[in-house]
């Protein structure tokens, strides 16, 4: 099911919890599928003693991948035209993240109705971990 232009308005919000109590195993799993085996994400000794961080932390692209799930659940599969995020601060094991999209514009582009949205992903403390935008084709 895809989103219909007639069903949304500027200012509408869609939010989802995209991960609850992020596990270290999920960081390993994402390393394996993405091919980003940076030890900062999976190797506690390295993250602490070489990296100088309190522990391992999530790949920015894992946060983006999970944020993408919120977007496709909302706009429908295969509907995205653009999707961009800036990573603001680290995501740690144990974090619970909520991704939110707020409709900023509904426009006509290349003969199609397109929704533009501001996208924010925040942790359990309300701290923004990633911020950006997406646009998608509407019915």
């Amino acid at each position, binding site marked *: 099911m895809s989103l219909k232009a007639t069903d949304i308005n500027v200012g509408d919000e869609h939010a989802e919890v995209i991960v609850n109590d992020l596990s270290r195993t999920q960081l390993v799993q994402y390393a394996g599928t993405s091919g980003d085996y940076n*030890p900062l994400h999976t190797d506690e000794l390295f993250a602490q003693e070489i990296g100088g961080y309190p522990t391992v932390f999530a790949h920015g692209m894992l946060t983006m991948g999970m944020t993408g799930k919120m977007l496709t659940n909302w706009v429908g599969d295969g509907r*995205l*035209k653009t*999707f*961009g995020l800036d990573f603001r601060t680290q995501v740690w094991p144990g974090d619970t993240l909520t991704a939110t999209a707020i409709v900023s514009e509904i426009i006509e582009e290349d003969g199609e109705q397109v929704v533009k949205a501001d996208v924010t992903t925040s942790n359990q403390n309300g701290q923004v971990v990633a911020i950006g935008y997406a646009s998608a084709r509407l019915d």
Partner: protein
Amino acid sequence: MAVEKFPVEAGHIMMFARSVGDANPIYADENYAKTTETGGIIAPPTFIQASSQYDPDASLRPKIGQKWFGSGAKPSGSNAPTEESLAGDAGGTSGGGTGLHGGQHYTYHRNMKPGDILTAVSKPGQRWEKESKRAGKLIFSESITEYSDQNGELVVTARSVGIQTERVVDQG
């Protein structure tokens, strides 16, 4: 990053979707996917990132027969990729600072699907510096990558922003 051949495969898509916690059957169930608008399995929006699996020079993948910079019995770190080799990659550590992935931006020209054979060509984008309280001087560098299919049609354009920090990011 340059990837000559990234074969998009159904099994890889399924595992990638699992790793981002996405249970949507469009990424795993061909029978279901056939009944939807896309007419078949497609890849999730950030799947293209997995092209690094097919980059022979990817610095963040252990190479058989080469020294890896992660820990064995002890933390190593001596073999960390340099800032230059990290352009377009997500992270890494060198010196006292850290290479971090600052942001990622995609423009989708069509959906990626199993059977696609993609080629990636990257070029450097802009480069700028900024002072930060939490990590000292930050050097931002962009990398623009165009992913095309076996017919030369553009599938995804990606802009990656890497940040090299002067020191480890202060967690205070």
